[in-house]
C-alpha cells in the first residue's frame, strides 16, 4: 500500500517530497484543529507565511501555496486521520515544550497540506508515472509515508518496511548521498546535527521506531534550509545582518569536555617540538619587509611616523629595524622600545623610561602623566643644540589593551609631535586606526605600511593558553589551580578559610547530586547565595551579611569564586574548578 502512495504523488517532484518531510513532525496537530477550529484558510496562510520567514526558508511560501491548492482538490477521509493521531500527538507535544505552542496556525497549515497528499495516493491511484520512479525514491517515499501514518500497526507491514529500508540504504551513495551532503552543507559550521545529523537516516530510524519521533524535527529543519545555503558572497554588512537574524543562533551542544585541554607545560613543550612548515616563507617575507628599512628611516627623518600593520607578529621586525637604525651613522640617537602587549605597561613607566633615555642622571618624578610629559619636554629643551640625542620611540602593538585609552594615545601623540622625538609603531588589529581622531592623526603624522609577516606571536606577546581558556570561559587559570587557592587562602583570616571550606563542601555535594542544580551555561554547579549565607551564619563564620559580603569579595578579587544569576534571578555562587581539583582543595583545607 505505501508503495502505491509513493508512486503516485510525483507531480511536485522534489518539492512534494520536501513538503511531506517538513510536515511530518507536526502532522498530529492537524487533525483535531482542522475539525475543531473554524479559522478561515486565508488567515491561516498568512500566519504560516510569517512563521516561515522566521524559520528562514525563503523558498517556502510558494511551496506552501501550491500545497494549499493541493489541499483543496482532495477530500480527506477523517477516519484515517483519526487513526494516526493519538501516539504522535503525545510525542510531539513532549518534544516541543513551548517553542511551537505559540504558532499553532502554522502547524495547522502544514498539517492540512500534508495529509491530503497521503490520501490522494490512497484514494485515487494512478500509474502514469510509475515507470520513472527509481526504486530508491519510491522506498524513500514509502518510509516517509510510514512515518506519517505511524499509527498503522507495525506488525502489519513490518516485512515490507524492511525491504523498503534496505533499498533505500543500499543506494545511499547515489542520489541519497548527494542530498545528504547537501543537508550537511546547509548545516555547516557547527549547526545542529543531532546525532546522526542526516535527515534521511533520521527518517529511517523514525520509521522503524515511532517513539524516536523526537529526532525528526531537527532533521526537517535541515531539510528546509538546504535549498538556501548560507549566502557566501554577500558584502560584510549584509553578512552581519544575515547572521544576526533573530532565532538563528543554532549551534550544536557539543563541548570540549572530552578534550584534554592544553596546559602551559604541554604548550611550551609542544612549542619546542612543532615545526611550522611555513617558517622559511615567513622568514623570506620578513626579509622582504626588511628591505624597506632605509625607506622607513627616511620617513622617520622627515617627521613621519611609520605605522606597521598586518597579520602576524611584527615584534621581530621592529626589533630588527631598531638594530638597523642604531647602526646608521647619523648623529646620536637613543631608541626606546615600548611593548604595548605587556599587560602591565603603564604610561608612567613609558614616560619615566623615556626620561631616563634622554638623560640617565635625571629622574622624572612620576605623577600625573600630563605633568610628566611637560617635564620630559623641558628635559628636551636644551637639546636643541644637539647635546641630547634624538629619541626614537618604537611601540610594539600600539593598539594593545594597555595603550588603548584615549588619554594614553593623546600623550603618545604629543610625544610624536615633538621635533626631537620620532615614533615607529606596529598595530595588530584590523581596526586600529579608529583610535585616533583627526587631531591625533595629524600629531602622529602616520604613514602606514602593510607589514603582514605571518610570523607567530612570541609567548611574551600573547599568552596562548591563557587567552584561549579565557575565551572558553575557563578562568581557573587565574590563580593557578589548587596551589593558587591554597596560596590565597593562606593569607586570609580563619573565618575566610572556613567559609571557603563550606563553599567547596556544598558545591561538591551539588556535584555529587548529579551536577544538574543551578548549572548555567558553561559554569560549574553553583550554590545559592542565600543558602550559603544561612549556613555560614549557622556555623558562626560571620554574623552579618556585610561581613559575609566582605569575605566573598576577597574571593572574588582573587577570582577563586564566581557569582552569577540563573534564569529566574537567583544569585548563585560557583567555583571555577573541576571536581577533582575541588576534592583536592577540600582535602587541603581539612588537613
Amino acid at each position, binding site marked *: 500500500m505505501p508503495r502505491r502512495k509513493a508512486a503516485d504523488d510525483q507531480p511536485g517532484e522534489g518539492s512534494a517530497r520536501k513538503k511531506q518531510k517538513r510536515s511530518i513532525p507536526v502532522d498530529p496537530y492537524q487533525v483535531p484543529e482542522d475539525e475543531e477550529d473554524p479559522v478561515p484558510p486565508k488567515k491561516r496562510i498568512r500566519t504560516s507565511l510569517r512563521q516561515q520567514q522566521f524559520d528562514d526558508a525563503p523558498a517556502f511560501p510558494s511551496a506552501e501555496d501550491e500545497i494549499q491548492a493541493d489541499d483543496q482538490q482532495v477530500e480527506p477521509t477523517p477516519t484515517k486521520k483519526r487513526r494516526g493521531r493519538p501516539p504522535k500527538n503525545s510525542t510531539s507535544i513532549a518534544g516541543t515544550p513551548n517553542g511551537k505552542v505559540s504558532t499553532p496556525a502554522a502547524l495547522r497549515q502544514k498539517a492540512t497540506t500534508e495529509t491530503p497528499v497521503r490520501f490522494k495516493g490512497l484514494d485515487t491511484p494512478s500509474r502514469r508515472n510509475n515507470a520513472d520512479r527509481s526504486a530508491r525514491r519510491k522506498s524513500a517515499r514509502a518510509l516517509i509515508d510510514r512515518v506519517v501514518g505511524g499509527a498503522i500497526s507495525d506488525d502489519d507491514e513490518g516485512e515490507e518496511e524492511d525491504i523498503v529500508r534496505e533499498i533505500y540504504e543500499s543506494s545511499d551513495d547515489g542520489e541519497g548521498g548527494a542530498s545528504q551532503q547537501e543537508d550537511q552543507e546547509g548545516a555547516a*559550521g*557547527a549547526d545542529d546535527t543531532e546525532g546522526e545529523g542526516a535527515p534521511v537516516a533520521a527518517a529511517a530510524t523514525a520509521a522503524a521506531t515511532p517513539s524516536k519521533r523526537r529526532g525528526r524535527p531537527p532533521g526537517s529543519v535541515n531539510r528546509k534550509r538546504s535549498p538556501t545555503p548560507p549566502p557566501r558572497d554577500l558584502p560584510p*554588512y549584509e553578512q552581519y545582518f544575515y*547572521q544576526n537574524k533573530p532565532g*538563528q*543562533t*543554532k549551534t550544536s551542544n557539543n563541548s*570540549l569536555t572530552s*578534550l584534554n585541554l592544553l596546559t602551559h607545560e604541554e604548550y611550551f613543550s609542544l*612549542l*619546542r617540538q*612543532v615545526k611550522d612548515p611555513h617558517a622559511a616563507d615567513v622568514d*623570506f617575507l620578513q*626579509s*622582504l619587509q626588511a628591505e*624597506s*628599512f*632605509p*625607506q622607513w*628611516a*627616511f620617513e622617520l*627623518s622627515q617627521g613621519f611616523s611609520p605605522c606597521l600593520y*598586518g*597579520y602576524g607578529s611584527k615584534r621581530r621586525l621592529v626589533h630588527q629595524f*631598531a*638594530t*638597523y637604525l642604531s*647602526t*646608521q*651613522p*647619523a648623529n646620536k640617537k637613543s*631608541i626606546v622600545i615600548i611593548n604595548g602587549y*605587556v599587560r602591565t605597561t603603564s604610561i608612567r613607566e613609558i614616560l619615566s*623610561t623615556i626620561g*631616563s633615555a634622554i638623560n640617565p642622571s635625571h629622574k622624572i618624578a612620576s605623577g600625573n602623566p*600630563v*605633568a610628566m610629559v611637560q*617635564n620630559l619636554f623641558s628635559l628636551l629643551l636644551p637639546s636643541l643644540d644637539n647635546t641630547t640625542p634624538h629619541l626614537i620611540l618604537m611601540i610594539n602593538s600600539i593598539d594593545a589593551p594597555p595603550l588603548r585609552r584615549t*588619554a594614553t594615545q593623546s600623550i603618545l601623540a604629543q610625544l610624536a609631535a615633538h621635533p626631537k622625538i620620532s615614533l615607529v609603531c606596529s598595530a595588530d*588589529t*584590523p581596526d586600529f586606526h579608529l583610535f585616533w581622531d*583627526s587631531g591625533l*592623526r*595629524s*600629531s602622529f603624522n602616520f604613514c*602606514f605600511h*602593510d607589514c*603582514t609577516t*605571518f*610570523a607567530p*606571536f612570541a*609567548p*611574551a606577546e*600573547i599568552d596562548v593558553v591563557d*587567552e*584561549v581558556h*579565557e*575565551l572558553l*570561559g575557563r578562568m581557573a587559570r587565574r590563580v593557578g589551580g589548587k596551589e593558587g587557592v591554597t596560596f590565597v587562602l593562606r593569607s586570609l583570616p580563619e573565618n575566610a578559610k572556613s567559609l571557603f571550606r563550606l563553599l567547596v563542601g556544598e558545591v561538591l555535594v551539588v556535584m555529587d547530586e548529579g551536577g544538574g542544580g543551578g548549572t548555567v*551555561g558553561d559554569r560549574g554547579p553553583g550554590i545559592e547565595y542565600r543558602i550559603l549565607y544561612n549556613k555560614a551564619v549557622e556555623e558562626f563564620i560571620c554574623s552579618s551579611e556585610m561581613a559575609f559580603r566582605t569575605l566573598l569579595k576577597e574571593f572574588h578579587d582573587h577570582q577563586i569564586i564566581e557569582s552569577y544569576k540563573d534564569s529566574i534571578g537567583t544569585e548563585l555562587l560557583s567555583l571555577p574548578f573541576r571536581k577533582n581539583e575541588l576534592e583536592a582543595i577540600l582535602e587541603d583545607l581539612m588537613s
Partner: protein
Amino acid sequence: MAEVEEDPNAFAFQEDDHRGAYIFTASHPAENQAASAPQPSKRRRVSGKKRKSNMPDATPVGEELSDSDNGSGLFVSLFSGSESKEAIELRRRTFEKGWGDLLEGRIQRVLREANQNTLDEVGSFMWDAEAKLTADGEGASISKKIPAGFIITGPNIASQDLLFEQLAETLSDAKRAARVVRLRSAGAPNLKAALKKIINDATASLSERSEDDDIAEVSVGEDGRKHLNYDLEGLYAFLKARESRRVIIAFEDSEAFDSGLLTDLIVLFHSWQGRIQFSLLFGIATSVDLFQARLLKSTAQVLYGAQFDVVQADSVLESVFRSAVAGSQALLRLGPSLLQNLLERQKDQVAGIHVFISSLKYAYMCHFYANPLSVLLADDGLLDRKLLQPEHIEAIRSLGSFREHVEASVEARQLNHAQSLLDDDEYLISQILQQRQKRLDYLTELLRSLHLLTTTGLRPGSFTDLYVSALVNGVDLLSEDFSNVFDSARKLGPGEIISLITSLLNAIQAGSPDLDLQGWESDADELVTALSGIQDKVETLVTRAKQSGQPLKSKYSAQGKILRTTVVAQKVQLSHDSATLTDEDKAFTKAIDDLTELLSTNIYCPPANSLFLHEAWLYNSKSPYRDVFVPRPGTTFERALSRPHDYLNCSCCAKVDGTLAATMPTASILYHMYLETGSLVNVSDLWSAYYALVGDESDMGLDERSALFRFYRALAELRLMGFVKQSKKKADHVAKLKWL
C-alpha cells in the same frame, strides 16, 4: 640572540620583551647582518600583487648604505645599487632644496597669513575690553565680567594648533606682557589639574624658576610665603611682583571640557577678577549657542564675549595650493590624478590642511627617493654630463615620453635627430640638459595662461580645478572644455570689455604673488600693444556711440538679434535676423573678435604629459599615497588570512585560490571556517572541523596534541585581532565580532 630569534622553535626568554618599556641597545651585530641582507638563495619572485615596497623602483642595498657615511645616508642607491654616490647626493640635495628651502617655509607663511585677520580681531577685542575696563573703573559693571573671545574653529581640530600658537604669540607680545595659557581637555581633566597647569604655565613663561620647582609641591612667592601649586594666590603674588595682571586662558577644544569644570573655572576666575585680570578664549567647533547652553546661566552672564570666525578651510587650501602646488617655486609638479585624489580627500573627509601638506611632502619624498631621474631637476650648475651614468641614459631611453618624442620627430622627418637620440649618448645628454629650460618655459607658459584666464573671470570654477584640468588637457580656448569662455566673452558689453582688458594688462604687469609669477610685460610686447589697441578702439567707439545716441552693441549680444515674423500666404514665418548694425557696432564686433582671437593664441599651453622627459618632474603615482595615508587594514587582514599564498608564496598553498587548504597557516584555516559560521561559534565543532582537516586521517597527519597546539595558537591570534570574544550564551562558545 640572532640565531635564537631566527629559529621559531626556540623562543628564548627575553627579559626585555616582557617589560613595558626599555632602552634599546644594539649589541648584536650578527643579527643586523641577517636583517639587512636577505639571503640570496631564498630570493624568489613575489606574487605580482604583493607590493614589497611602497616606493616603486627602490632597491635599497643595505651594505652599501652603511658604507656611505656622508649625509646622504638616508637615500639609497638606485639602479640596483649602481647609482653613483654623487647622483644620490644630488638627489638628496635637490629634495632638500625643493621641499625644505623652497616650499616648507612658504606653506607655513601662507598658513600663518591665513589666520592673520582672526588674530588682529581677537587682539583688538582683548585690548578694547581692557581699555573699557580701565575706563569704567573697578566698580563698573563691565569690570566684573570676564572678556571672552569665542573663536569658531570648525570641526577640524587638527588645524587649531597653529591658530592658538599664533594667538599666544600675538597676545603675549612684549608690550602688553600678558600671560597666555593654552589648555587642552586632555591636559586638564579636573579643576585641580587645570589650575596647576594654568599657574605653572603662567609663571613658567618667564622661565625664571629653577627646575626644582617643577617637582616641589609648593612655590615660593616673592614675599616668602609658600603657596600650594593650585592656589591662585600664588599666581597673584607672582604677577604682583611683576606689576602685571593679565592672564589669558585659551580653551582650545572647549567642547571636550566637562561643562562642570568649565563652570567652576569661570566662576573662580570671576571671583579673582579684581586681583588678576583674566581673559578667556574658547575654541568652538560647533556654535556659540550650543556652548552657552552647556553653561549655567549665572556663569554665562559673567562672560563678556565676542565671536570670531576663522578662515574657511577651502580658502586656506586654495592659497596653499596656489603657492605650493601650482606656484612657480614648486620644483616638482604633482600629476592630475594624484592631485584630484588629494583634493577629493580634502572635500570628502575632514582631513585638514595638514594632511594635504603631509601628502604633498610625501609625494616629494617618493619622487626624489625612488626616481633616479629626479637628478634632472637639480640646478643647472650641479648637473653635468659626468653625473649621468649609462644607467640614466638607458632609463631615459625606456621612458614613454622618449618614445613619443622620437616617434614625433620621425613623423616630422627629423630623422637625424631621432637617430642621434637613439644612438648618440652625448647628443641625448645635451638634449636632456636643454630640457630643463624647456620645462621652465612650459611652466611659465602654463601659469601665465592660467593667471590670465582666472583674471578674465570668464571661466567659472575654482583655481584648483582649473589647474588640474590644465595639466591633463592643457589650456586651449578653442577646445570643447573652454567653449563657454568665448561665449561669455562675446556677451560682454563695451564697458566690461574695457575693464576686462584693463585687468588683463594689470595682470601682465603685476604677475601673481600667490603663484610667484613675476610680471611679464617685457616678454609680451605684442600682446600688450594689441590689447591696448583694442582697448583704445573700443573706447573711441563708445564715445562715438554716445555722440550718436545709439547704444553700442555687437552682433553677439542678445539685443543684436531680432525675431521677425512674416506672414506669407497665411502662414507665419519666423526668422532670426541680425538687427541692422551700425558701423560702430560692426567695428565693436570686430574688436571682440580680435580680442577672442588674441586670447586664444596667448592663453594656450599643451598638456603636461606631452612633454619630453616629463617623467622627471611630474609625479603622478597614486598608489604610494593611497597606501600610506589611506590604508585599508581590514582588507589587508582579510586578504592575508583568506589567501595566505599571496604573501607567503609557498609552494604548498599555491593550488587553492582563495579557498581552504590543509596546508595553510592555522589562523587562515580557522578564518575560513569562521567565515562560514553564524554569529555564535561552537569551539568544539570548530576544533573537530579543524582536526578533521589536518588530523591523523588527513594528508597532514598531525597528531591530536600538535594539532591542538596550533588550534590554540590560531584561536588566540583570532582573539588578539578582535575576531572573537568570549560568549556566555553557551558552553565552549565564542561570539563572532568581525565581518570583514
